[in-house]
């Protein structure tokens, strides 16, 4: 999948989970929860939204890969090959 397509999916997923967070204001290399109040419920909802949009299952053990936007992009790129 193309990078900009992944970016769009992540953008939509985050907006659904936390509409009050500005995607562009988040530092991609820093875990989201270190930049904003982003708890386990948000992480779970983020995983659900990504998995639905991309049609992949994201095991719980992979949640740490969703922590930062950059890491998330790399992980999803790898998963969607």
């Amino acid at each position, binding site marked *: 999948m193309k990078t900009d397509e992944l970016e769009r999916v992540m953008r939509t997923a985050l907006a659904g989970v*936390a*509409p*009050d*967070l500005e995607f562009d204001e988040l530092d991609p290399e820093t875990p989201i*929860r270190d930049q*904003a*109040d982003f*708890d*386990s*419920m948000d992480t*779970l*909802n983020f*995983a*659900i939204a990504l*998995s*639905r949009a991309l049609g992949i*299952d*994201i*095991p*719980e*053990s992979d949640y740490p890969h969703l922590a930062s936007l950059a890491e998330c992009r790399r992980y999803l790129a790898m998963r969607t090959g």
Partner: protein
Amino acid sequence: MADFLMPSLGADMDEGTLVQWEVAPGDTVRRGQVVAVVETAKGAIDVEIFRDGVVEELLVEPGTTVPVGQPIARLRECGEAEPTPGPAPAPATATAEPDTARVRASPAARRQAEALGIDLEALAGSGPDGAITLEDVGRAGSARESMAEAVAPAPAKPAAPGRPVDIRGAIAAAMSRAKREIPHYYLGHWVDLSPANEWLADWNASHPVAERLLPAVLMLRAVALAAARFPDFNGFWRDGKFVAGDGVHVGTAISLRRGGLVAPALKNADRHSLPELMDAFRDLVGRARAGRLTGSELLGGTITVSSLGEQGVEEVYPVIYPPQVAIVGFGTPVERPWVVGGRIEPRWLVRATLAADHRVSDGRRGALFLEAVTGLLQEPETL
């Protein structure tokens, strides 16, 4: 002329030692100003004065230990004339601070507070002599309204961004009331989370992401089941007596990203399965953050759970949400050495705490209740 008394800086304080005066005779003091430092069993504490006036005389030298309630300074109130030399005034008897008897509030503020059902005692006054003004009541009212706004369905409104949700005032009022009226007692207990974690990992591994559970839901469910078994922790203190809840509706403290928190209730949490509870919980969190809770959800809790989640400290001493009578806290799970079967093992532990209303229950009952909660978490399959 008013006496300034050695204050009680805690229920267990009988006397205090004056360490130093921060004011001198002739100084004008304002309500809330630090006027002295007093050494107590708990350490040196800055002592504030509770009225405006002019310091007439300091009655106690630094280094002196005096009982609580003894006059330590004399204060001339605003507008009071300088004393004229004459017969010595009758010795003042040590009584309670006179101005604590009745809240100082303007007639307009009182009428408005009554109309809105706002407790004047929970408000800080900004008017003359610290009196509560109409504006102060209005501020508390609008704080509550914005909370109600968060409660009422507001379809046309975009969610959170930029919306000034001033729920601080509402939290201040509720928590002040809790600490003023409810004699809390506290219990704490370590819980080995390993069984729950293992059970949860199995469940989540075998379910698609949308059906996975969060540890918080196990905790909510455990509290709900325990509360059903111990009805004296599930209900309200109203008009001087305990009234049992009409079901187990577990309030869950949800922090709002823009600040503040709400504690909407999961209705009949004891009668729903974990997946149902998870769905309800997810829905509740989403709507709380979007400002779309209903009034019965916001006000309907019969007991509350405050869970710090992954990012926090080990232990929380929660404050009961009036008129409820109990709240259960869960700290952040930590990995610690733990003795299991005579061997030290690394284990995931969570600190469970209970704050309960001593008017309704006693420590022994509280211990049984908290043990029930932790016991249920040891057997996640029973949840």
